[in-house]
């Protein structure tokens, strides 16, 4: 094949995928910025340019502040816990403990279930009186509690459910990393008389650090991307106590049909994700220099 053909065929092969990516990823990401500068079209009032008015509204919108705060709490509540559990699970499954087949099955199964199905099951746990949580709490003499109906507990309930759903998924990445670790490391450590904890702290944990960063980035993306359980369990309530940024976008865009404001909110979400991408890029850059 000559050089000119190389260019032509390369582009032709790429074209179908590139066209779809442009239409459903790049175009909407840019269009949402443009649309956030216009008012929402109403039957009696067409859309018009309003500059940064949507963003001014946003700064004064208590619900926006609330969902950002909720999203922060949700991320801080789910990410460290599910990563720590994932690493623990991976070490155990990798370690040929008795019944590791069952262990792996038990840890991983929540991952392949639809979030919406999982949310339905967990909703029953949290039901006042009849629910499993209240029944168990009742055995220890605690009073009934409306777990999903109370501002204080609703976000915590969603956090617990999300950790349960995600830990097994992240375990897989750690398992892959652990299986690539040279076995003679453990043998050497044993000869030195190192305890398992020392070995984990000084050898395993540093070696799986790249995996931890990879998982961390995925976990952060997930905390902004996944709101299925909110639709099923709380609809963001009570009083927006469990609403996250994407759920708020969904509400504004498809319940109130205020697409202009929803576009502005999407810009904030995209800015957060772009910031994350930049951080990852800078980190990867650094890692390349280290080698």
């Amino acid at each position, binding site marked *: 094949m000559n050089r000119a053909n190389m*260019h032509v065929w390369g582009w032709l092969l790429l074209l179908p995928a*590139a*066209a779809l990516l442009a239409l*459903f990823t790049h175009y909407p990401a840019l269009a949402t910025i443009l649309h956030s500068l216009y008012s929402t079209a109403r039957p009696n009032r067409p859309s018009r340019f309003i500059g940064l008015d949507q963003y001014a509204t946003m700064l004064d919108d208590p619900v926006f502040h609330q969902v950002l705060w909720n999203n922060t709490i949700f991320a801080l509540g789910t990410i460290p816990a599910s990563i720590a559990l994932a690493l623990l699970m991976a070490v*155990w499954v990798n370690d040929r403990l008795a019944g590791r087949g069952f262990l792996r099955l038990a840890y991983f199964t929540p991952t392949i*279930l639809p979030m919406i199905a999982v949310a339905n099951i967990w909703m029953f746990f949290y039901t006042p009186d009849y629910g499993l949580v209240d029944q168990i709490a009742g055995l220890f003499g605690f009073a009934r509690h409306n777990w999903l109906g109370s501002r204080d507990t609703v976000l915590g309930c969603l956090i617990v459910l999300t950790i349960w759903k995600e830990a097994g998924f992240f375990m897989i990445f750690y398992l892959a990393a652990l299986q690539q670790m040279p076995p003679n490391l453990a043998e050497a450590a*044993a000869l030195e008389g190192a305890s398992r904890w020392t070995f984990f702290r000084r050898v395993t944990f540093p070696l799986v650090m790249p995996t931890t960063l990879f998982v961390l980035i995925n976990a952060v993306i997930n905390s902004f991307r996944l709101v299925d359980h909110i639709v099923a369990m709380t609809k963001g309530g009570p009083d927006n106590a469990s609403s996250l940024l*994407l759920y708020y976008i969904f509400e504004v*865009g498809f319940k109130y049909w205020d697409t202009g404001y929803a576009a502005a909110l999407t810009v904030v979400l995209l800015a957060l994700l772009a910031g994350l991408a930049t951080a990852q890029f800078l980190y990867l850059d650094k890692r390349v220099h280290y080698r």
Partner: protein
Amino acid sequence: MSAALESRGLGRGIETCGAWLLAVIWILPLVYAAWTAVHPTAYSAHFVLDAPLTADNFARAWDAAPFARFFLNTVLLVSMTLAAQLVLCTLAAYAFARFAFFGREVMFLLVLVQLMIMPDVLIVENYRTMNALGIVDSILAIGLPYMASAFGIFLLRQTFKTVPAELDDAARVEGANFLQLLWKVYVPLARPTYIAYGLVSVSYHWNNFLWPLIITNSVTTRPITVGLQVFSSVDQGIDWSIITAATLMTSAPLLVAFLLFQRQFVQSFMRAGIR
């Protein structure tokens, strides 16, 4: 890990207990759901060994909503999306791996953007686009934003790059053109990657919910996840036995496939995760 560090009597015993305790806690919600689904409502939170078994909850759930249609929609969605993904990602990955075309690096970076900014968060604008295309409330509209998958392109490009150049040359000497080369050499060698990507894609789209909820509004287009949500929020009040039966029913195909091919699933997810 080697036998040397493993066998430390007491410590190991404690760890095994911990691992099992965590596993039991992890599997408990599912065991519980299964219990509720196969017993009469009266026993849904009442655990006695002689509780009568019943398939009634499943039958009632099946009759209460058009689940057969929802299943069909999901199967159509998942197979259509996967088929398109396999073709588009293979071609694009081949271009990135073996063609030094003008602008390759920039285009590759533009593809990777989708790893961060997924269609899941672009719901408002993508709805607008589907509306302009006149395909709101169609199965095609559910799958379309996901068909060019950056993840698939990336994964296949990595695999294609490991194909030795000698194989490439040998096939070319035989007179194969580059599309035959792709089909006869690259695709067969990337089989494990295709299986891995396929499993990840199928479980992702079987489980996807928010975008299908937004873009569909009729029985003939709703996938099983949306059908389940509409069913459990509107039709049933609080009959938990029926809701859990429906819930298990919707997850059953994936769950059964997972139990049968557990090793394959786990290895596929692992393969997909190593970059």
